[in-house]
């Protein structure tokens, strides 16, 4: 039993790491621009399919490096054209727009690539298990965790030590003052959005290697990201990190005892958090009133 538990907790952490990647991107965009990006799952799909399309030419590693920035560029274009006009308005509108965008992306992908699922080729050595004992940990999963760790570290370095990062953090707290200080807020929001979408694209490449490609693959990953943010606390990136890992582990644990509820449990967690500590684990009071 302890072995089963240990296995599942470890597994939960791995799954949680993936949620973290998605949720962080979503959180970045939410915190600075007050936009709930319903199309985040769609950008994951775009990232995955771009990787699928270019892998035959530059291989898996090439795709890993190139697909996320390409996705981010698409994100930049979307932000500039579709989302920028909505910044002053009620958050309802950006919600609706990204919602519609998600439809377009899903259908567009189906139109271009077909409804059929597509396999993604990953390097052979990654497809194997680490050992016979730990058979459920494949090298690919460890690789995913490694990528997430690197990405998260780079993100935090960006936010703490670069000018862009400091401005983003300042903007999250008080955008008006930042604008008053003469910083180009439009550019800031665009770049912030691009970083968020980069993370979504990266998630897409990783997901494609793990699950294969399908036009509908983004929708199932969107909700856990929301929940990670709510549980961790809106406005707090470390919170989102903790939230993602927590729901991954919770899901894994539940799968041992009550498999049918392993997805529902993250909603229950969210409900509990909202009841007991509405601002989330690391959220600050009044962040999103």
């Amino acid at each position, binding site marked *: 039993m302890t072995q089963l538990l240990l296995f599942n907790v470890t597994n939960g952490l791995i799954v949680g790491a993936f949620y973290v990647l998605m949720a962080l991107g979503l959180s970045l965009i939410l915190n600075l621009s007050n936009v*709930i990006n319903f199309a985040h799952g769609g950008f994951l799909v775009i990232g995955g399919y771009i990787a699928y399309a270019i892998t035959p030419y530059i291989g898996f590693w090439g795709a890993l490096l190139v697909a996320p920035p390409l996705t981010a560029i698409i994100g930049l274009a979307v932000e500039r054209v579709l989302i920028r006009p909505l910044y002053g308005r009620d958050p309802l509108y950006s919600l*609706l727009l990204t919602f519609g965008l998600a439809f377009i992306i899903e259908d567009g992908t189906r139109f271009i690539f077909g409804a059929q699922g597509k396999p993604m080729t990953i390097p052979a050595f990654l497809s194997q298990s680490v050992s016979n004992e730990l058979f459920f940990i494949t090298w690919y999963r460890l690789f995913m965790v490694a990528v997430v760790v690197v990405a998260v570290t780079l993100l935090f370095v960006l936010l703490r030590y670069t000018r862009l990062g400091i401005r983003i953090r300042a903007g999250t707290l008080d955008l008006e003052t930042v604008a008053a200080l003469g910083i180009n807020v439009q550019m800031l929001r665009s770049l912030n959005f691009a970083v968020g979408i980069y993370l979504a694209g990266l998630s897409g490449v990783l997901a494609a290697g793990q699950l294969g490609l399908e036009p509908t693959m983004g929708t199932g990953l969107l909700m856990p990201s929301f929940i990670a943010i709510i549980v961790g606390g809106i406005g707090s990136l470390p919170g989102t990190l903790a939230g993602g890992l927590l729901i991954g582990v919770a899901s894994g644990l539940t799968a041992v005892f009550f498999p049918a509820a392993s997805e529902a449990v993250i909603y229950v967690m969210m409900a509990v958090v909202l009841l007991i500590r509405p601002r989330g684990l690391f959220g600050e009071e009044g962040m999103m*009133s």
Partner: protein
Amino acid sequence: MSTEQTRKLVVLAAIWIILISAPYWMVPLGGYTALATRVLVLGLAAMSLNFLLGFTGVLSFGHAAYFGLGAYGAGLTLKYLAASTPLALIAGIMLAGICGALLGMLIVRRRGVYFAMVTIAFGQVFYYIAFQWSSLTGGDDGLRGFSRQPLDFGAFKFDILSNEKNFYFFVLFCFALALGIMGFILRSPFGRTMIAIRENERRARFLGIPVERHIWIAFTLSCFFMGFAGALYALVNNFADPRGLHYSQSGDFVMMAVMGGMRNFWGPLLGAAVFVVLQDYLSSVTVNWMSFVGLLFVLVVLFFPRGLLGFLQRSKA
């Protein structure tokens, strides 16, 4: 009566005449009665949402949950309790309303983006319950094995099961009933307070209005109406399924309200009519109808944020 009032009365009369005669003028135009019934039911749902969204200024993006609860309430009643349509409707309304009241208490302190996210998440909780509790709800396959029962008025039976037109008029009657109550509430002091909160919440608070309590009541009322719409929907299909609870359904309702015009009482009905008819038409013509619907969302948000009625009203001014 002033010209303004006469004009309003004329418009109102015109709307009802169009609605009452719908089964007759729709058919030559390539419509069919079931489409009109669907427009009414989804229009009622959109109007229920707008009660909260347009008139109180509160964004709930998980409202389909109460729509679905209404549907399941009605379905379960018809399947397990009694073969009575009115009882099923009441059960659906109560189930949705009570859940709304309970949940509302938890979330009214939040606003804006956070509130929206929380309503989405709670909506999904209900979706999962419907999905997983398959012994009760039929899970992914949905709740079936029930159908709307003829209305027994003692003297005669009004067959709403096999007669499409009869069913349409029944739904129209329910629709009118719900609208009457909604309109009454909106015209009352409570309704005025809701609008005040929408316009400027802080000022309303300064005036001593218990804002959270008002929002909670508005939320609960909108859930009751939503449940009514959901129960009717279960009767339309003789079916209830989890997809009616999903946040994508909520998105559709919000879109209808926005597209028709949130500030107008009849706006969401117009939005629902356009949306349902468009979706019905597009999905027959092309497999890629989803792109067009998504495009519609994007275009409405960018160019017609006040909706069709808002646009028309502004150009008149």
